[in-house]
């Protein structure tokens, strides 16, 4: 079983700051981390490999320092890693990103055919969730998004059973292999990395490919040039006026609030014991 996990290095959006004057991102303000959903994707690959055996490769696209997220993936349990890094990839939107990654996956597959691709549901810096299904379309394999459980992997008969989160519950799907999954965080808990993994990770040097290392690439489909969407403008959302402040000490504030709530009979009513 050859599982490839696509991972992304992202700024930690919990800490990131926006320059209010220029409305741009102050990237120095946030540490770069492995996208949290992708960590769950690697963990799920480890769980599957523990049952089926095989190899886990991780693939990332980004600047040279994105090697860090591949090392992190090795720490979780991946066997090898590939980074595609080139100026030609810069400025890519989701369409151009899925194109570049699919070209790298085709190359990886030549040496060792891929049975399963796993991605995080989305990256926390873009929040789109569009790259995973995009890769699947380009490789012509079924995409299954919002996965909360991989309940069966049948290597011999080449199928998987998947629980997929739905708008009001979940569904169980069967898919032929190879296919592509995008996983939710609830799919697993990230386990503490065993010491040997940490040692491996520290020493690990991933394979780095530039655009010229990939085959049959149409360069017009890469990076900024290959991206149909652009950011028109950035703005702080229209400032809302806000409502009334309820002033005073906590006792008085609570009393005033209760008064207001009791008057809003259209929203709130008291049910007596008998009604």
């Amino acid at each position: 079983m050859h599982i490839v996990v696509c991972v992304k290095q992202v700024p930690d959006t919990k800490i990131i700051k926006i320059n209010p004057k220029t409305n741009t991102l102050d990237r120095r303000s946030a540490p770069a981390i492995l996208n949290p959903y992708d960590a769950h994707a690697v963990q799920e690959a480890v769980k599957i490999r523990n049952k089926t055996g095989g190899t886990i490769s991780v693939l990332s696209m980004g600047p040279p320092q994105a090697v860090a997220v591949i090392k992190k993936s090795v720490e979780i349990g991946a066997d090898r890693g590939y980074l595609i890094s080139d100026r030609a990839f810069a400025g890519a939107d989701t369409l151009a990103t899925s194109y570049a990654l699919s070209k790298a996956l085709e190359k990886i597959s030549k040496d060792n055919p891929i049975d399963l691709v796993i991605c995080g549901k989305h990256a926390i810096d873009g929040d789109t969730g569009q790259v995973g299904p995009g890769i699947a379309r380009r490789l012509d394999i079924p995409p299954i998004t919002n996965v909360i459980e991989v309940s069966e992997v049948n290597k011999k008969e080449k199928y998987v059973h998947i629980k997929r989160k739905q708008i009001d519950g979940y569904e169980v799907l069967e898919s032929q292999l190879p296919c592509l999954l995008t996983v939710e965080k609830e799919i697993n808990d990230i386990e503490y990395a065993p010491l040997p993994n940490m040692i491996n990770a520290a020493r690990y040097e991933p394979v780095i490919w530039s655009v010229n290392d990939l085959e049959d690439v149409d360069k017009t489909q890469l990076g900024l040039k290959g991206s149909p969407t652009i950011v028109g403008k950035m703005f702080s959302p229209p400032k809302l006026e806000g409502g009334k402040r309820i002033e005073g000490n906590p006792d008085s504030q609570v009393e005033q609030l209760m008064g207001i709530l009791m008057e809003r009979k259209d929203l709130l009513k008291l049910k007596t014991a008998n009604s």
Partner: protein
Amino acid sequence: MEENQGVWVFIEVNDGKIEGVSLELLGAGRKLADKLEVPLSGVMLGEGVMPLANEVIYAGADQVYVVDHPVLKDYRTESFMKGVCTLAEKYKPEIFLYGATPNGKDLASAVATDLSTGLTADTTMLDVDIEKRLLEASRPAFGGNIMATILCKKHRPQMATVRPKVMKALEMDEGRKGIIIEEELELREEDMRTKVLKIVKDVTKKASLAEAHVIVAGGKGLGDIQGFQLIHELAEVIGASVGGTRDVVEAGWLKHEQQIGQTGETVTPKIYFAIGISGAIQHVEGMKNSELIIAINKDPNAPIFDVATYGLVGDALDIVPKLIKQFKELSKEKGGEMSYV
């Protein structure tokens, strides 16, 4: 590109009913279509969905394309994508909107790849530049601290997924007339690589947040998981549902499905208590359309006060226990329990 015309909305059907977000998009799409002076069309796929076509018209469409086929009984990316791409290539819309539901996002991502066009995710504001015929799809970016307007200048259709409950549906007008176009599509079950084995509805989940009348939501301002207990207590006393911010969910104080915001649930309750929540756009996008918003926060400059109907500046750990006590006394006095209209 000039030949592309018209605004399309993907109509999502679940359990024989049109999803609310699809009706909202017909409302939003109507405005865009009127500005551009083009027809608004619904695109509906499924098995036995034909009887719903009129509803699409009543909700604002001028026409509706229907593909009714046994292979389309349950949503699958491969079958729906084939149907939608075939129609889009045949009729060439200039704008195509989808609800940002699990299926809507899945479908739109696949369709955008096959049509080699741009797709904006989780849009919360839609407008159109009439002169350039450009869709202006805006969404919170970078974890929701700022808004970005995304444009797709050279590719058609311009596509976007739109968050549920941010656009307004029109009143159903049963007198509205439109055209229903039934499309034949060649689909064979043998060609499918996926199968839906089972669909499990979790009714409680939907009822708990998305349809709750009152929500008590907490943020990191409550200090720790012990402090967060106050949220559960208050909710218990007034019979409300519990929600929280992304930070709180990531800290493990709450389950993922209780996250409210851009990447969680969008909610529109009658009353929303925002307690110890600073009000990052990420969160506000998921609750700003609540009818009455009560915010409690230590920081008088917290952005949550900008969306709140009533704001209480103070320590939640002081105020909330007093609030719980008041509600408890009230229900004892009246000999019953709280409920909501």
